[in-house]
């Protein structure tokens, strides 16, 4: 992140270049058009491609809405499942944040800590954690907290790498000036490295939040005791061929992912928006 990023001109230039397709109206109209097409395609598959006997594989949209969302009883059980999953995902993300920030800050403070820890952070990423979920269930039991462990494992890596990268991103010249003016380690961390890291931190958080939601949903498939999460409902509806409720639950899950992604995007903008402009193109 160079200090001299010419943030002022680029947006207007970009708009001038791509004309109508980048205008405000288009930003609303185009996604809606795509959405309508997808619904159209959905109807097409539902009514034309699938025979009546096999229509439960993909019930038409209005049925999904009627059975999955407008039926109060159904909606309640889906929302309860979603709430259980959300709690797991949020707890996992919060713990991953604490661990991730700590590890990244430690790594940024001494080369030997970085050298010792980084390989494990990478290994953690290469382990297919979702495949380990049954093992974790077996080892830690089926409590709320073992579901949380899955989310932590899956969400912590992007937080570590992005935060660490962010903490390293302050220019060497800036570090020199802090040295020249006798800043201690703590001051350097708080007044230089941490603020410099924020854009990258929020990038990491956005990724991790999405991963934590996925971790919680996949975890639901295996942790069949306690309150059923939305993932377990998805599995149940699938087994009992309740297509409408199945798709309603899937839509709710993806809405949760979207909400979380949007939340951290907005949070990042609120914190860094006044001074940071991501360089694009």
């Amino acid at each position, binding site marked *: 992140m160079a200090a001299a*990023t010419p943030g002022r001109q680029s947006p207007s230039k970009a708009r001038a270049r791509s004309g109508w397709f980048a205008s405000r109206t288009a930003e609303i109209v185009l996604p809606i058009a795509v959405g309508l097409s997808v619904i159209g395609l959905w109807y097409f598959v539902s009514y034309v491609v699938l025979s009546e006997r096999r229509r439960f594989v993909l019930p038409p949209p209005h049925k999904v809405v009627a059975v999955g969302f407008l039926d109060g009883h159904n909606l309640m059980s889906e929302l309860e499942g979603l709430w259980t999953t959300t709690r797991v995902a949020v707890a996992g993300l919060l713990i991953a944040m604490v661990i991730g920030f700590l590890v990244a800050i430690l790594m940024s403070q001494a080369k030997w800590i970085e050298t010792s820890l980084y390989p494990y952070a990478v290994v953690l990423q290469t382990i297919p954690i979702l495949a380990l979920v049954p093992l974790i269930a077996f080892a830690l039991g089926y409590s709320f907290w073992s579901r949380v462990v899955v989310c932590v494992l899956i969400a912590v890596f992007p937080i570590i790498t992005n935060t660490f990268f962010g903490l390293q991103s302050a220019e060497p*010249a800036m570090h*020199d000036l802090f040295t020249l003016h006798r800043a201690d380690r703590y001051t350097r961390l708080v*007044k*230089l490295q941490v603020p*410099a890291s924020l854009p990258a931190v929020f990038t990491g958080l956005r990724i991790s939040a999405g991963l934590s939601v996925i971790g919680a949903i996949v975890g639901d498939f295996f942790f069949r005791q306690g309150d059923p999460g939305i993932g377990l409902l998805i599995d149940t509806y699938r087994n009992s061929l309740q297509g409408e409720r199945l798709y309603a639950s899937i839509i709710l899950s993806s809405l949760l992912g979207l909400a979380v992604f949007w939340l951290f995007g907005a949070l990042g903008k609120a914190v860094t928006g006044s*001074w940071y*402009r991501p360089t694009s193109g």
Partner: protein
Amino acid sequence: MSSDKAVMLQFEGVGMTFPDGTVALEDVDISIGRGEFVALLGPSGCGKSTLLRIASGLQPETSGRVETTTDQVGYVFQDATLLPWRTVERNVGLFAELEGMGKTQTKNEVAKTLEIVGLSAFAGHYPRQLSGGMKMRVSLARSLVLHPELFMFDEPFAALDEITRQSLNDEVLRLYGAEQFTGVFVTHSVAEAVYLSSRVVVMAARPGRVKEVFDVPFGYPRTAELRYDPAFAELTGLVSQSLRGAH
């Protein structure tokens, strides 16, 4: 010419060899008196930046001795290196904050300094909202707040257009007159070196060393007319020649 003045910064047989074997400086002797303004000219890679880093203590020399009589050092780089998340006002207050200046005093000094560099109206702006020249003024102001006794400049205006550069040269001269600091100014522009300094040190490369020193006979305060003085043209000619021989 510095014999009658207290010495502010002295290099005695200074050498710098980097771990990779690069000999950046060899046997450099320069003595800079209090209140002097010395310009450093030389081909790229002759060790000008290294010399400033050694003088400020950012980099230990590998041979010889460096002596300074102050720890009040200002340092300005080619890039303004402002903190993008801080407003102009808070950027200007940064070093004072790091050095532990009290809140009220910092606030007063910052306001005064912004006034001096003509940026009071931009106190609340973020760096990305400023032009290159304005960023450079903020960078100057940031050090100025601490009233450094020794002010080092490493090609501070190299990235600016000629007009902005000349107006910032006058700014530096004005500050020099008002603050009486000792200046060490690295530049690739011969005119800038002669215009600002009381002495021009021309360096040669591989290994970095002092090639020739020119006294600049023009008194302070200086005004823009100096640029059109035949004596000025003559001296810049001589320095240019020496610099060409250094390549």
